[in-house]
């Protein structure tokens, strides 16, 4: 197991290096180069511009910049933000918790609902509940996330006025309760796609297990349905599900960008758009790398968890 882990971790390094090099190249390709932000400033004299370039190391040849950037990256230093004149790690660190909060609540919501709906549907396949759930999940998968968010906003915030329509903290509200109220609609928005997808997955893998011989044995010895499902079926059905979740979860980052845009949630999505508008390349590259790390870690976790949960799979 340990050897497997080490090997996988070592394998992830070239992957992330590839991402780092590619994102660096994109920045170099950008019109005006990485210092466009400063060059566009009309009040800046040529001498000042040169000074900034020198300070930021932008006057060095590109390969040297790349090596230095990667070297700093390995030490956890993502450089200085062009627009906020603070370390990128700090800039991202300020808003990352908000995004993590949104992602975590959304993830919990979809796990709970996907499991409940999936199991309920599997109890009576092709029954009423199953059919309704199947119909709805087709829609859930076909809907654009951001549009669903807009509709929630329109109905529950604008029309009914039950919940705040945007932001994370109200004008005169404060405290966790206020944040929770602001969190409800974005969390549903970010979760809807995976509720739809995962519940179908739980349903089919539960059904698959229900058809196994050990279920017949359990029933034959007199266990009630509920105990069969909880004690036997779920344990087996959840193994593949856990890996699916680990692979999908990092992609919540994408959902977060869209959701944050619709609901003006102060997180990574908004930071990204701000940075994009002013061409703050160090921040953009930092976000790219962070996203890649999340995806790679998710995939790694999927492999590891798979091996841990299922003793039949030997991980080498």
């Amino acid at each position, binding site marked *: 197991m340990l050897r497997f882990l080490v090997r996988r971790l070592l394998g992830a390094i070239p992957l992330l290096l590839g991402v780092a090099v590619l994102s660096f190249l994109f920045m170099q390709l950008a019109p005006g180069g990485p210092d466009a932000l400063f060059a566009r400033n009309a009040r800046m004299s040529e001498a000042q511009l040169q000074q900034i370039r020198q300070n930021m190391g932008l006057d060095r040849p590109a390969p040297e910049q790349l090596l230095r950037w990667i070297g700093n990256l390995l030490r956890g230093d993502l450089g200085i933000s062009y627009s906020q004149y603070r370390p990128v790690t700090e800039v991202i660190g300020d808003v990352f918790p908000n995004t993590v909060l949104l992602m975590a609540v959304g993830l919990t919501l979809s796990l709970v609902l996907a499991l409940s709906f999936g199991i309920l549907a599997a109890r009576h396949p092709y029954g009423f509940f199953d059919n309704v759930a199947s119909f709805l999940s087709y829609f859930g998968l076909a809907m654009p996330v951001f549009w669903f968010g807009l509709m929630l906003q329109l109905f529950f915030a604008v029309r009914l006025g039950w919940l705040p329509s945007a932001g994370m903290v109200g004008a005169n509200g404060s405290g966790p309760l206020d944040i929770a109220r602001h969190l409800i609609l974005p969390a549903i928005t970010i979760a809807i796609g995976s509720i739809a*997808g995962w519940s179908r*997955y739980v349903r089919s893998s539960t059904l698959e297990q229900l058809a196994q011989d050990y279920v017949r044995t359990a029933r034959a010895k007199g266990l009630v349905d509920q105990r069969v499902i909880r004690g036997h079926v779920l344990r087996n059905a959840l193994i593949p599900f856990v890996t699916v979740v680990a692979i999908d979860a990092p992609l919540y980052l994408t959902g977060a960008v869209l959701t944050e845009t619709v609901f003006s949630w102060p997180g990574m999505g908004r930071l990204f758009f701000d940075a994009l508008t002013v061409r703050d390349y160090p921040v953009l590259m930092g976000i790219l790398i962070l996203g890649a790390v999340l995806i790679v870690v998710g995939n790694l976790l999927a492999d590891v968890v798979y091996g841990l949960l299922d003793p039949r799979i030997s991980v080498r």
Partner: protein
Amino acid sequence: MSLPRIDAVDEPVAREAVAAGAPSQVASGLPEGRVAALAGLAGSGDRPARSPGQLALARLRRAKLAVFGLVVLAALVLAAVFAEAIAPYGENEIDLFNITAPPSAEHPLGTDELGRDELSRLIYGSRVSLLVGVATALLATVVGIAVGAVAGYYGGGVDALLMRFVDVVLAFPAIFLLLILFSITGSSVGGVILFLGLFSWMWLARIIRGEFLSLKERDFIEAAHAIGVPDGRIIVRHLLPNVVAAIVVATTLNVAYAMLAEATLSFLGFGVPPGTPTWGNMLNAARPNYTTAPMLAIAPGMALTVAVLAINFVGDGLRDALDPRR
């Protein structure tokens, strides 16, 4: 297109293709599409639990859904092709007396902030959506086939290199990268097709590679080698026909994915140039006024949802039809 020699299909290619369509959405990140989703919707795991009657029923239901999808899709294509004849107004025709007007007999879905007829723009918008969807999917398919075929057929170092490249592309948080690319190059329909296409081929490549790796060991390939058939011909004439099912299904599902992605990018203001009627652009434009004119936000999203739903149904139907093991 000739159908695959189904007897030679060793793996349930088609079913994996579903997993192909979905993760390509996942990988490209934009809409919430999932591996699990389509695998689950396909109901691939629940076969043992069903009686023959239920099985037949499910098949019938899926066929019905596929037919429904085809009908909707046909209507959509007709609307796009004959937009001039069908749309009550021109795409940029302005009615100054009706600005952000609610739905009426004159304007069935109301008018937008410039007094343009929403229904007409919706109809014209289907053109770009469909164009982007189909062109992107085809581009992704071409790249996916090329990379997958070369990697799978030649194996060894080429294979390792190409697959590591696939890993890197998959590790990119695609939405961020796409937005950066568009902010650099500016928005254009061609750009949307190119960039989306270049980020949706990876799963198809993986599937084709996997199939080729096992297929190339089979006797009929060895026979082809023995009589001196050149590599290119073996790939195109002997190997590819065996994975047509996977390709068709993955391409279909990719069309839906690309349409969603285009709308997402346009909604964020980075896709198709603003002003061009596309469903994403209309949603973007509707945002400032959507509290007073909700129909402007509701209608394009509904159109998109129905279109994607229809394509997904067709994709599922194709998978059922092409998979001999169902």
